[in-house]
């Protein structure tokens, strides 16, 4: 049996439950999954600004937190926290190991996912009606291929204590240690399909232990504030029990597992990864009670011939600003404020780009789904705008703030922020164009 934990399911995931898992989970492997399409592009941006950055900003805190326990229990760490700068992440890891007195700690680096130099103006973007990179009309920030287990396995074979990657398919971070432990062939498609289901269930961390699930009175989750990260007990045939630390909050039930089974999945019979075309549609989910749920029966077919590439473009800036109205006639005052903003940003500032005004408290998140028909005594006018030129966003923020004195009665609580924006699209490239490599650093 292989006992795996997940200590992060996204870039900003919680730290202290990961430390608890490292200390008490009796784990063989602890995985941190931290890359999304957005964070990948931000990694490139950070690296351009400072060649020593571009990895996950929480890498230091996470490794300082878990390395002592992992060393003590012989738990290997596998993580994509290298993001856009695996080399710098490796150097930092070695420095932290020395600082903690963990001399001799071995860190294997998986590189080769950065395919920015292989992307040209004529590269076709498969998710953008076949448009090319050139037709997006914005500078490419970086491009990364999703590597699979064939890139991670050589790193595990070095015996390294910590394996750091950049962009790899999320389930592959989990599948690689399973394949390594049980010696599966890398063309044993049915087993790789089942192992991919296990990886897919684990990759979002607490989304299978009660996070992103609770709905009070209907789907209650005990002690959600102290929710624990998941553990998978994987058998040699790939069947697994999903569970958590007994004293951690949260819940593992058939329902939490089902919701995660299809999370971000399209056709359950054809889930494409670099490793396999996984078939989740035959998966069996069995509740053994006590926060232990069995997952088995998934299968798979041959892997795709191409690798998916995420291409990140500089998207200019996103500005968001808001002002609130409360009490009697608040909704009418908020609507008046929205009208003023539309009029002034168009008439005085000449802004003709993309802007959206929401009335938070009346109908914001679902404003494009159904019409605003409710009333509220607590309404926030929220303006969002994207622009290539930062000064256009600054003008918008100024206009929203000016409502404090120049707008409807009783407007308060102005906040505004400007954040850099990236646009991401997908391309497919032949496997042969990607050459993953592994090197080992020793603390």
């Amino acid at each position, binding site marked *: 049996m292989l006992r795996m934990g997940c200590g992060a399911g996204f870039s900003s995931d919680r730290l202290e439950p990961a430390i608890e898992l490292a200390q008490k989970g009796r784990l063989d492997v602890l995985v941190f999954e931290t890359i999304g*399409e957005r964070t990948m592009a931000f990694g490139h941006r950070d690296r351009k600004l400072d060649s020593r950055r571009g990895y996950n900003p929480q890498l230091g805190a996470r490794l300082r937190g878990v390395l002592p326990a992992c060393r003590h229990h012989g738990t290997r760490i596998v993580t994509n926290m290298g993001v856009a700068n695996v080399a710098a992440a490796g150097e930092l890891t070695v420095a932290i190991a020395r600082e903690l007195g963990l001399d001799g700690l071995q860190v294997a680096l998986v590189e080769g996912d950065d395919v920015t130099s292989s992307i040209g103006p004529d590269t076709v973007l498969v998710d953008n009606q076949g448009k090319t990179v050139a037709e997006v009309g914005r500078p490419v920030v970086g491009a990364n291929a999703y590597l699979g287990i064939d890139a991670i396995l050589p790193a595990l074979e070095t015996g390294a204590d910590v394996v750091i990657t950049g962009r790899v398919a999320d389930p592959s971070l989990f599948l690689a240690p399973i394949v390594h432990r049980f010696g599966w062939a890398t063309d044993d498609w049915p087993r790789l399909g089942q192992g991919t289901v296990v990886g897919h269930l684990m990759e979002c961390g607490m989304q299978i232990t009660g996070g992103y699930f609770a709905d009070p*009175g209907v789907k209650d989750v005990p002690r959600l504030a102290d929710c624990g990260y998941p553990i998978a007990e994987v058998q040699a045939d790939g069947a697994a029990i999903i569970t958590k630390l007994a004293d951690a909050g949260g819940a593992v039930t058939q329902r939490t597992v089902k919701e995660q089974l*299809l999370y971000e*999945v*399209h*056709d359950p019979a054809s889930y494409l990864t670099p490793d396999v075309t996984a078939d989740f549609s035959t998966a069996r989910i069995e509740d053994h009670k006590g926060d232990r749920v069995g997952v088995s029966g998934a299968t798979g077919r041959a892997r795709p011939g191409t690798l998916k590439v995420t291409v990140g473009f500089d998207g200019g800036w996103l500005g968001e600003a808001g002002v609130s109205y409360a009490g009697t006639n608040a909704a009418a005052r908020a609507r008046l404020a929205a009208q003023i903003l539309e009029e002034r940003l168009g008439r005085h500032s000449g802004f003709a780009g993309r802007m959206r005004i929401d009335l938070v408290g009346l109908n914001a998140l679902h404003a494009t789904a*159904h019409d605003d028909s409710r009333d509220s005594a607590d309404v926030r006018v*929220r303006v*969002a705008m*994207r622009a290539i030129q930062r000064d256009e966003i600054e003008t918008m923020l100024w206009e929203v703030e000016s409502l404090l004195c120049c707008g409807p009665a009783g407007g308060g609580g102005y906040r505004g922020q400007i954040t850099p924006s990236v646009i991401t699209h997908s391309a497919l490239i032949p496997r042969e164009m990607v050459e993953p490599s592994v090197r080992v650093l020793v603390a």
Partner: protein
Amino acid sequence: MSARTTTIPLHQIAHARAGDKGDISSISVWAYDPGDYPLIKAQLTASRIKAAFPRLIRGAVVRYELDHLHGLNFVLHEALEGGVNTSLGLDSHGKSWSYLVLGLAIEVPENRPMGRSGK
């Protein structure tokens, strides 16, 4: 046996989760009680979802069925204002789209046994 029916929100008999990839939103819907799955499957069709939110979903809606797990998976194309990195919406991932679907009405027999829900 009475043939009379009443309508309830889907939320009373099913749970759901939304995810995103690019401009595609995917929403899985699961019956709390396997006994309710056939009527959810019969009424919650892809065309119904598409028709319910015409401004939100600009592309096709495809439904996949996992009968043995009593779940449906809806794939909503062009449903995220271009995707998380281009949307101007507050919920740019469409995380809350699951509750749009759970707000749809389902017709159930009036004499349906009580107490079938998440509780």
